[in-house]
């Protein structure tokens, strides 16, 4: 119950802010301009609409989740709200889970709207987006957002809000653009670089495992359910690990009144 109240506070805060509305407008503008892409006069190209819509949904949701989760703790510390909260009968673990749940839920709700808008734009151009694949893609996307929210929150327990957000972005970008290329990069790496790449490969989250954009855009149909469940379990595992790290970093943290 206490967790739910905290999550609801985060949800209300996000509804008050302009971040989502700004991103939604940018998203809509980008999608509308994509609809007018000149394809040398040939008609019928639709896959790029789905692909671009989902790519924008990923980018926007990551922007929102890192910004939201990254500021939750620091703004409570700065404003002194943490002292009020911790004087109530609420455990620090509950406080962290409440913050995570609020950040995650609000961003997942925003992402659902981005997915819906993508589907509408693509369907409007005559694309037959497979609903089962769309649901799979959304569920795994939500799992990825849970991972990122938990990791950003964990970083926020020991760093300032800005530092936590920057570090979270570095982790996310490396995970998205480098980690899954490591097995190929290793073929041409010297022993020292190979060791560094291997550490990167196994220490960083494999975010691309949870990205079904190409499967959806190129109409390959739904992935096997068992495999999706394994990927989902991987995402949940990282989320639990992130929350555990956050709790370990926070459970004995001292908050002097003159901090920041």
């Amino acid at each position, binding site marked *: 119950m206490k967790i739910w109240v905290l999550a609801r506070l985060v949800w209300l805060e996000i509804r008050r*802010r302009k971040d989502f509305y700004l991103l939604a407008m940018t998203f809509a503008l980008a999608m509308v301009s994509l609809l007018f892409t000149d394809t040398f006069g*040939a008609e019928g190209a*639709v*896959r*790029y609409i789905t692909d671009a819509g989902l790519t924008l949904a990923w980018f926007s949701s990551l922007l929102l989740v890192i910004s939201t989760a990254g500021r939750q703790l620091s*703004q409570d510390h700065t*404003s002194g709200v943490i002292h009020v909260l911790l004087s109530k009968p609420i455990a620090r673990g509950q406080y962290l889970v409440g913050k995570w749940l609020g950040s995650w839920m609000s961003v997942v709700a925003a992402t659902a709207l981005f997915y819906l808008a993508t589907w509408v734009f693509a369907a409007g151009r005559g694309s037959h987006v497979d609903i089962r694949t769309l649901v799979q893609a959304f569920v795994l996307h939500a799992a990825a957002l849970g991972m990122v929210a938990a990791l950003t929150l964990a970083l926020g327990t020991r760093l300032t809000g800005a530092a936590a957000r920057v570090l979270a972005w570095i982790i996310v970008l490396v995970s998205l653009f480098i980690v899954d290329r490591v097995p190929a990069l290793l073929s041409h790496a010297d022993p020292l670089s190979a060791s560094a790449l291997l550490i990167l490969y196994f220490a960083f989250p494999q975010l691309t495992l949870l990205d079904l954009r190409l499967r959806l855009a190129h109409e*390959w149909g739904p992935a096997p359910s068992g495999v*999706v469940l394994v*990927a989902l379990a991987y995402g949940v595992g990282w989320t639990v690990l992130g929350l555990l790290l956050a709790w370990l970093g926070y459970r004995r943290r001292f908050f002097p009144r003159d901090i920041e």
Partner: protein
Amino acid sequence: MKCCSTNFVAVVAAIMLFGAVFTLACQISDPHSARRAESVLSHLFGSFRMLIARHTYHEADRYFHQGIGHEEERAFDDPFQLLRRHLSPVGHVHLQGRTAVEIMPWLRWTLRADPTHVEAWLVAAYWLQRDLHRPDLARAVYREAALANPHDYRIFMEWARLLLREGSWGGATRLCDQALARWPSPLTVDDETARLDRARLMEWRGYLWAWLGEREKALQSLEIAQSLRPQHRIIREEIVRIRLAQEIAGVVGPGLLKLRDDDEAAHPPRRRDDHH
């Protein structure tokens, strides 16, 4: 809290501004624009535009392979890669027929970022004429490509090939001449592709001279083509036909017929790193 929101708005606004300026740079440095040389923005964004063009062309290739990238040699296998193989499509498939239109947005973006990317122009025109059956659009692409790259013989050559397939002998003649006038730019005389292209152009020009009734010029062209491609059977046959025939003006010989009827006469330009 307000400060954080302001920062967020500033970041998004900066990204949007960057996009707007980049688009503006593409417009200002349009090859048809007289201001091209003096455009500061085009210089500022030059390298970035090349990167964008490279990425979008790569994406066009990925789209052609139905979202599957090129297979890379991997140093090891592990459960993550196994899972990824089950989640992401794998294999070697191509877009066929009408679905080839899916690569067009990526090719258009490539050419917006880099109008000198001749390979992208040629690929776009090839798929428009072959799988999409829109030679009218392909001709428009060649026209646009020629305006953007007036010194590149390859565009005029492929344009001529299209007209030969359509049986527009007069137009093809003019384009063959334009291509030969520009050859080997931008390649070098020693380039293998350029040499083969010259042989093809001389061959086509020879057939077209014959159609015009210019026996000597036709034989001269075809003999050059034969010296460059000695194993080419039709060139040999055409030389014999032109030497022996009473009347050649207006006669569509087997060389031109083959160019008009043979689907395999046209082929997409291959990426230098494409091993498929």
